[in-house]
């Protein structure tokens, strides 16, 4: 089975994001970039398949600026087999991005495409379902498990109160919410091997995809309103503190 994961490089989840000087994008100087967390889960899910069946081929692709090569290198070091990049210095319209990825999928012919359920920068969650739509494939959203089953794949989807299990014919696409295990760290041999692997590269314009499309435009950004200056209750017996808090929540905060 061949599994392809389209991934995105985003600010690492530990980065304290700050608004940039233009007031409508983030300040990128000195920040650490990583694979978007849900894409990492997708990679881990694919690699777990490969652990179970070593004939599995795991490929990653990204559409983005040149710095995104580092994210691909990271994926290779985790154990992915192949990586390619489509260089796009300016963000393509969301639907154009899905069309570009569809071209890559048509060439690379994976049986299964796993996308993170959303990238942790714009948090839109558009590209996965949109890619399935452009390909005309079925998809299952926000899965936590993928198990090969007779002539297809069983996809476990977490919903309120449990999991729905769907069987999809191949090829299929799923968006990933979590993997069964935490994403693995690259091993030292993995890092050495990844350094030697070639990352196939081409320009967005080579794909002959129309980069236009309806796109939301960020007008301004601001940090969430500052919080703090709250009341601290301490140094009392628990019963007294508890009554103080319950009364405050009812009479001051008016949430009870």
């Amino acid at each position: 089975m061949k599994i392809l994961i389209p991934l995105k490089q985003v600010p690492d989840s530990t980065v304290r994001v700050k608004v940039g000087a233009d007031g409508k994008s983030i300040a990128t100087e000195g920040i650490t970039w990583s694979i978007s967390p849900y894409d990492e889960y997708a990679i881990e899910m694919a690699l777990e398949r490969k652990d179970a069946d070593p004939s599995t081929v795991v490929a990653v692709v990204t559409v983005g600026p040149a710095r995104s090569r580092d994210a691909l290198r990271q994926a290779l070091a985790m154990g992915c087999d192949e990586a390619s990049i489509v260089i796009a210095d300016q963000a393509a319209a969301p639907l154009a991005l899905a069309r570009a990825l569809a071209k890559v999928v048509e060439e690379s012919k994976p049986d299964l495409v796993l996308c993170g359920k959303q990238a942790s920068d714009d948090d839109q969650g558009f590209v996965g379902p949109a890619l399935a739509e452009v390909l005309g494939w079925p998809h299952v959203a926000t899965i936590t498990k993928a198990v090969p089953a007779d002539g297809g794949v069983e996809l476990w989807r977490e919903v309120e109160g449990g999991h729905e299990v769907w069987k999809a014919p191949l090829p299929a696409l799923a968006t990933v919410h979590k993997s069964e295990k935490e994403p693995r760290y690259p091993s030292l041999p993995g890092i050495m091997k990844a350094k030697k692997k070639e990352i196939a590269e081409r320009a967005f314009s080579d794909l002959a995809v129309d980069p236009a499309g309806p796109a939301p435009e960020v007008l301004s950004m601001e940090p969430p309103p500052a919080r703090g200056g709250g009341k601290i209750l301490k140094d009392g017996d628990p019963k007294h503190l508890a009554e103080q808090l319950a009364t405050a929540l009812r009479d001051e905060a008016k949430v009870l």
Partner: protein
Amino acid sequence: MKILVVAERKGTELRRVTLELAAKAKELGDASVVEIVGERYSPLPFVSALARKVEADSPDLVLLGATLNGRDLGARLAARLGRAYAADVTGLQASGGSLEVERPMYAGKVRAKVRVPLPAVVTTRPGSMPLKNGVAAPEVAKIESDTAVEKLTFVKFAAVASGGKRVSLAEARIVVSGGRGLKGPENWSLVEQLADALGGAVGASRAVTDAGWRPNEEQVGQTGKTVTPDLYVALGISGAIQHLAGMTSSKVIVAVNKDPDADIFKVADYGVVADVFEFVPAFTEAVKKVRST
């Protein structure tokens, strides 16, 4: 502006977010509400039925709740129709010939104002649109899900033991979450009893779901759920930045932690420096008392 709201039900009741959207749509213009009826949500049959309805009625704006299914349906619908798409918005207004929305980005670390060209598909975060008490349920037109286009086969539903009877985390007005300070899954009755006394949902920090103490679906934070309840109670949670990203938009935050330097106190409206095992049972009793008087 012509708006189509896509209704969602939990059991037999319309979800609160549907009521919020119906009220908002009325304020924006010519509103109607449609429900797709099928045995269970699946993208292809639902998108197919809804796309046909949208093509027939040509609303400028299609509104869905940013629920698990709403976000999936909205994204694929927008792709099919070539419409602009904005997910998980927390504010929404018409502005000239387009739409101006507010939405969190970077996992809640930034709030953005975004212009969305029309026609568009937008999902809104449950609890983010005002809803007056006692608002009448909207009139809902029903369309059938288009099962002929289905390519998936439903295999089974695997239920998890916990939860079920409580309100769902994403829509709850009150959320009580537990962290590593609870020391183990055997102590979760403390969290549950307080949640029940408050009539709220139960959540957890990532440390707790990663350790397998609680199911993933209860995780609040960057790779879990983002919640915006009226009251968020964090029990034994230190307040890692990824957790804060998922709950700092709550109206009132209460934190209980033994460590007075815990980061969670920086966002708390009420911080209690105490041992959760001593404080929480007393607080549960106190809540019952003030709610009954």
